């Protein structure tokens, strides 16, 4: 299994993701340039990651310009064939703007950038991205965003819930989901979702910042381990 990390102009968590996937998880990982029009060398057991950052400076709207970049046509084709795509933070915003995931990320209710550790409750562990977790598990993972308030209309939210597409919700350290643990005002405390096909995943928190002992937090590793485990099991 190979990972491709897309570098948009303004991506700034690309190196962090490559470090964790390569140096920590010991997986094969390459950079993919945003001007590329295809994904040669990748097959459906591989995974494309859209990292965090400020693609195109967040101009116009977070993720809007990146969603239209040449590589995204290739990523859509790749996803349509069943390839796995993960978007973290700005990458999640790009996936929503590109139409690969429903909904949109709005400005935080505080109108401020927020960087801190938050807690996530696992809502669905039956996906490649969460398969090694247990439903109800709580992970401590940091957020760092100004536009992380997940929003979708009631109709879409209903569908997400019905199809079990909500992966993570913001919660207390003990797993209680309530307004006071919602850092950005996200609809129904949603922190991460997947598509119906269970092969496109987006989340605002940064698991790659919580995957090394020296950083004092390894709660994020289990998500990368899940992806690797999924491919291993499917092979």
């Amino acid at each position, binding site marked *: 299994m190979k990972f491709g990390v897309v570098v948009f*102009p*303004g991506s*700034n*968590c690309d*190196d*962090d993701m490559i*470090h*964790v996937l390569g*140096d920590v998880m010991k997986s094969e990982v390459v950079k993919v340039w945003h001007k590329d029009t295809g994904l040669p060398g990748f097959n459906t057991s591989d995974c494309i990651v859209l990292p*965090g*950052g*400020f693609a*195109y*400076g*967040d*101009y116009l709207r977070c993720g809007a310009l990146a969603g239209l970049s040449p590589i995204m046509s290739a990523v859509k084709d790749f996803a349509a064939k069943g390839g796995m795509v993960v978007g973290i933070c700005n990458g999640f915003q790009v996936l929503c703007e590109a139409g690969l995931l429903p909904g949109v990320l709005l400005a935080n209710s505080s109108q*401020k*950038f*927020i*960087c*801190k*550790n938050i807690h996530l409750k696992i809502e669905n562990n039956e996906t490649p991205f969460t398969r090694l977790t247990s439903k109800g598990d709580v992970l401590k993972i*940091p957020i*760092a965003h*100004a536009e992380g308030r997940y929003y979708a209309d009631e109709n879409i939210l209903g569908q997400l819930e019905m199809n079990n597409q909500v992966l993570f919700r913001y919660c207390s350290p003990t797993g209680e989901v309530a307004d006071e643990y919602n850092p950005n005002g996200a609809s129904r405390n949603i922190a991460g979702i997947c598509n119906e096909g269970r092969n496109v995943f987006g989340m605002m928190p*940064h698991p*790659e*910042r919580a995957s*090394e002992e*020296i*950083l*004092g*937090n390894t709660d994020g590793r289990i998500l990368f381990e899940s992806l690797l485990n999924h491919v291993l099991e499917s092979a």
Partner: protein
Amino acid sequence: MQVNDVLPDLVTAKNLGLTEDEFEKIKQILGRHPNFTELSIYAVMWSEHCSYKNSIKYLKTLPRDGKKLLVAAGEENAGLIDIGDRLACAFKIESHNHPSALEPFQGAATGVGGIHRDIFTMGARPIASLNSLRFGNIETPHMQRLIKGVVSGIGHYGNCFGVPTVGGEIFFNDCYNQNILVNAMSVGIVKHGETVSATAAKPGNLVLIVGSATGKDGIHGATFASADLTEDSAEDLPAVQVGDPFQEKLLLEASLEAIAANAVDGMQDMGAAGITCSTSEMSAKAGLGMKIDLSKVPTRQKNMHAWEILLSESQERMLVVCEPGKEKILFDIYDKWDLECEIIGEVTEGPMLEFYEGNTLVAEVPAESLVLGGGAPVYDREYTSPEYLEKIKAFKTSSIPTPDDIVQTAKKVMSSPNLVSKRWIYEQYDSMVRTNTVTTNAPSDAAVSYVKGTSKAIAMTTDCNPAYVFADPFKGTMIAVSEAARNIVCSGGEPVGVTNCLNFGNPYNPEVYWQFVHAIKGMGEACRRFETPVTGGNVSFYNQSQIGNQTIPVYPTPTIGMVGILEDASNHTTLDFKNTKDIIYLLGQTQNDLGSSEYIRSIYNVEYSNCPYFNIDDEIKLHDVIKKLIKQKIVSSVHDVSDGGMLATLLESAFVNDKGFKIDTEDNIRIDVALFGESQSRAIISMSETNEARIQELLLNNNIPFTRLGVVTDGEITVNNIDFGQITDWKKTFETKIENILEHKS
């Protein structure tokens, strides 16, 4: 030479910030009358900001050599220190005070952008930034607007650029009511042999401008920074630059790629005085000249005058020098990153800098005559001991009564904006991007970032208590250096180098200049003792406010940025109490001294009092013993005693894990002096019972005074058998005070 209709006169020269003597000197250098463009070039290059004309004499007395220094101080854009493993650390701090006072968001943002460019123009990748901020009264709407603007400007730039903000400090005092201070520091890592010098290298080399197009923003910014801030300064708004962190991110990646491709022979960022400064400094450094065609410079608007292009401080630009033949590599790389890249001239034998517009020569000046260390003026100002020192001498600690209700007094002291958590601010900064920051999850006195691919970590801090420096510039600045070193040592590091940001009032005021001269002497003395050379930095004069007919200088604020190394990152030591029943010691001796404490300022409104007790030999002894304790891995936490005194230190150690403490203060010391006195060279350590005997032995062998204060508890706080309540109550005020003020919550 283009002949202007009217050659500028002395009035014009003075309007540009030059003195009569300087105007005469320019005419002498050129052997003729300068035209307006040339006069503008001299005005900006000889401004305080670019020439250091009123400070360089004293800056040269600072220790500038050290065995780990890879470039001599002042030789390049930032200091460069060997950290082993064939890696080097580049670091520098710089002020952006005047722009931030006028337009806080852009002023602070471009301050961050500018200091990062100083680092990556040397080939280093920035891995961390810090900032040191000084604000006035937080209760006023004007100041709240400035605070919010500065914080969101720093966050906007750093977060988007993708470099974590890992540390900093904030101090509030009315002396900054109209003239806030915004000092930003950047720290980068570069492999040996991959550094780039700010030089024109050799004749025949091509000169390129890369990055953003040039606009009319920030013209005369350096001149503006070199004058008093007045009520009319708002009319200088065009002198404030506008930042675009997205462009800077592209410029960073493209420039490091160009350096790695071996296509760059010299590189200099464009900060103050734009093309003028970068062309003259790169030329002068190589003893050469340049021939530049300004019509080749990509501009944002048509019909810009030559002097506007020369002086524009548009952000996110670099001047690159390369050997002929390598330009194709540069074009390809900057095109890949969608950035401008144009050849605008070539390096000549010199000594002249020749600026053309097409075929018309619009300015011609000797490069050497413009720069610091060359023809730029050097002044030695007169200074006199300030009158206010008499009031400081008159203060006696014994004049302060011991409060009746120590608990209520403590609550009031600890709710001072200077002592409470700055969480509302630092949560708006991304502290974790690049995944090097150890201290987000494991706080210590200094910020610590590990260096990937090695076992090392870098410790970083900025420090200066300006109230101490006001009371005694010499001793106060020694304390600033000592506190910085103490923070690094308490975190498990070895201090290796200093960068300074010298924020003072008007140098033509003899009392201000006295403060400056004595601060530099104190800094030199302390840096020599800690063997931490001063690798560079910046001077910001003219920080003062005009209130009615009175001009009030800010407190002298020589901010110290210090970098240290942890050879073994596992020696990182945190400040938090970890286990109930762990034993708490105070290292060092509390003196009977309340001078310059937050306590007497916040409770008794004392404005003039002595600088706290300080003895550098005690300080060095303390550092040595802390290093030993950490190396033997027998302490659970180390936290230095600084602003707010011992109670502030104990509370900060307790907050992290919601622990409390039961202590008895030292015998023969008043309880308020013990809890709030800020006498120096002290630290609080905690340890498990099993390690106590070994620690005691080590302390006794090293002849360090210490006191067994008590033990860590589950959350209740008791001092001398007085009930101080629960840690969670103290924590609530600590964490929400700033937020409540700025967001008008009660």
